[in-house]
């Protein structure tokens, strides 16, 4: 197991280096950051002086190698736009995104799985049909539109929830949390529903399909024949056997949540990393963009690793295989 984790960690370093390389190659075509940093009537000399100062006059591969070298030493550089160290900015924004993704993922799981089980068990119920119809909306409407619709209903028409921002946050060491204040919690509701809706419907449909498949299996029939309670059959046997694909998809989707947070954060002016990334693109803020992309790659790698490890927990056969091969 340990060797497996080490091997995966080494692979992930390669993945991140590749992501950084591709990102850097793309940044060469994004236009000149200098244009955003100087006044419209700045002279060519002023522009060139700034370019030299930032090291942007050096060839692409030199810039890339310098970035890698600094990355290894934990130095992510300075943001062109904000003028503070990238590490500090990301540390400020990370809690906002992670809290949003956390709530959205909880929402997706705790609504998606039960709804999936229910619609799987009661295939022709009126409620099932209703849930399936609603889920179609979740799958087909783009995220920004859902966000705007929620804002229109809950902020503009009803005035219950804020339309933008994070509310009041409380600082716990380096972590700023919105979980401890009423306004912080209220501010979380709309963005996390917006962000999690697609995943909710995806999980629901996946669980439903798997349930339908499993419920037809022989061992379920035998379990019923043995006189086990419905509860034990549905949840103890059927649901558990649907979980392997669900965990895979849900795991990957958490990575997707972090990436999709870009759109949700832009709609709700959520001060997280996704929003930071969008502003950085407009400003051609290369240090922020490259660090963000490497970080997101890191998240994906970690999540995949965790998903792989979860398989062992859920599927006993994998554990058996391992122990057999060890002989």
């Amino acid at each position, binding site marked *: 197991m340990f060797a497996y984790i080490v091997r995966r960690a080494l692979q992930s370093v390669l993945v991140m280096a590749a992501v950084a390389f591709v990102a850097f190659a793309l940044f060469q075509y994004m236009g000149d950051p200098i244009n955003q940093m100087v006044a419209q009537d700045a002279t060519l000399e002023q522009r060139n002086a700034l370019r030299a100062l930032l090291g942007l006059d050096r060839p692409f591969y030199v810039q890339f190698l310098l970035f890698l070298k600094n990355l290894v030493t934990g130095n992510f550089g300075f943001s062109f736009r904000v003028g*503070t160290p990238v590490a500090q900015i990301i540390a400020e924004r990370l809690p906002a995104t992670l809290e949003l993704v956390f709530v959205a993922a909880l929402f997706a799981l705790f609504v998606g799985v039960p709804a999936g089980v229910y619609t799987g068990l009661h295939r022709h119920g009126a409620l099932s049909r209703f849930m399936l119809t609603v889920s179609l909306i979740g799958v087909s409407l783009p995220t920004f539109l859902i966000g705007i619709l929620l804002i229109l209903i809950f902020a503009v028409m009803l005035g219950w929830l804020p339309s933008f921002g994070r509310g009041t946050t409380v600082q716990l060491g380096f972590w700023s949390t919105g979980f401890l204040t009423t306004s912080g919690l209220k501010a979380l509701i709309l963005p996390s529903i917006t962000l999690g809706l697609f995943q909710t419907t995806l999980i629901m449909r996946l669980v439903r399909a798997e349930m339908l498949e499993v419920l037809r299996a022989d061992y379920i029939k035998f379990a019923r024949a043995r006189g086990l309670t419905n509860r034990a059959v549905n949840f103890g046997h059927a649901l558990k056997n649907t979980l392997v694909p669900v965990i895979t998809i849900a795991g990957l989707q958490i990575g997707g949540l972090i990436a999709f947070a870009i759109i949700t954060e832009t709609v709700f002016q959520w001060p997280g990393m996704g929003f930071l990334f969008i502003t950085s693109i407009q400003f051609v803020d290369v240090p922020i963009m490259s660090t963000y992309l490497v970080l997101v790659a890191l998240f994906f790698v970690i999540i995949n690793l965790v998903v792989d490890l979860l398989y062992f927990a859920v599927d006993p056969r994998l554990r058996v295989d391992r122990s057999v091969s060890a002989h």
Partner: protein
Amino acid sequence: MRYVMATALAVAMAALPAHAKVLRYSTNADLLGLDPAINNEGPTNAMKTNLYEGLLYRNFDLSLEPALATEWSQASPTVWRFKLRQGVKFHDGTPFTGADVAFSLTRYQSEQADMRGYMATVKEVKVVDANTIDLVTNGPDPILPQQLPLFFIMSKVWAEKNNTTQVVRGTSAPTFINFNANGTGPYKLVERVADNRTVVEPNPLWWGKLDNGITRAEFRPIANAATRVAALLSGEIDLMYPVPSQDKQRINSTKGTKVLEGPELRTIFFGFDQHRAESLDMKGSGKNPFKDKRVREAVYKAIDIQSIARVVMRGESRPTGSMVAPGIAGFSAEVDKRPAFNPDEAKKLLTEAGYPNGFQVTLDCPNDRYTNDEAICQAVVPMLARVGVQVKLNAQTRSLHFDKIGLKENRNTSFYMLGWTPGTFDAHNMLVNIVTMDGPGAGQNNSGVYRNAKVEELTLKAGTEMDPKKRLEMLAEAQMIHKNEYGHIPLHQQTLAWGVRDEVIHDSVKPRPSNDVDLRQIKMK
């Protein structure tokens, strides 16, 4: 316990003034930073104007009034003399002196300061006595006072104490001064969190008197236009700009909110390549049609500006024949008259010039810089096709567009769109940047290299002419020559729109032509 809380609440309430009025305002992007000597951008400069002061202050109508200087005069052609206001203190209580002016000048003139253009002609600050200073210029500079509202004075003592005397472009060291401010301005900084909020409160030490009712102002940028509108409608913010055209109706029809409209100072125009012997799009022909005045005139007359104003801009533009907006010093009503739209004459002119079947050209356009920029260019394509000019549209994001038409790619364009607001509110700035090549610092944005000897001469002269009347005549004459040569095609000035909650914003508030918020010019009910 309940008693303790009740007492605490009562104390907290008593601490607030009877009518605490918090102004929450928003626009689409955050400030670039608070360092007075860098971050030369409209809304950022407006926030700096709340916190810092210059020797002079620019009113809503663009006129100048005393600020840190109470009087100003010309001691000699190269010396501007200022009487300093007495008893002024910075936010931290340090007294303001002539030494602070001299110190601020050295900061403005340092290598990395992108505000240095405003003080480029100043050689030194001479402290004459405790309440008089001289600004000594390299040569006669008639428009120096126009630049002074953006020459923000900071405290020398404070800068030294906080180790921030050097101007640093936030790329090699954390920049204290981008997140802190200590000026003499009417507002002092309470909090700044990048991309989130900037909070200011009235400065009790300010020499002037604030009667706008604002006890606290929170600037909260919201990038997404739809969210910004929603936040206004739901009452979470009190004032925001820009308002998207499609949402005006909604804001006006909602009780408690309305749209305020006004003219903007930026002029949008097209420019032609007039220097290459061969057009970029006509390789091998050895011809550049835009070198011929008749072709430029034909293109000008083939553009139906009224239709653009009506359809593309939905009535939110002011068609113009001038390269500067009304209100800018040197604006001339005569120049502003546009030659009439006349496609038949355009066709005739092209035939005379030897292009009866027209020619091909690429139009370079930004797609995220000006209001409807790409849509305007799209509308022009069929208008020019009608007279035979086949236009290939190249619309792209602003950073790529400005690289392409700018000096970075050596003015790699034949036909392009650009917008310009003279930073000095004076037409001379436009002449230097857009229509001349020879003077000091000239031609940075003259992407088509328009050049006329008489215009060059007049622009140079106007740069040093100290008689205001003669100067304005020179500016008008230069613009007239340029207009008659069809050097560029001015299109329009955009209309700007602010959304406000009229229950809290006073009826006298109007949107500033520079489209930014100077808190002194906002009033709450």
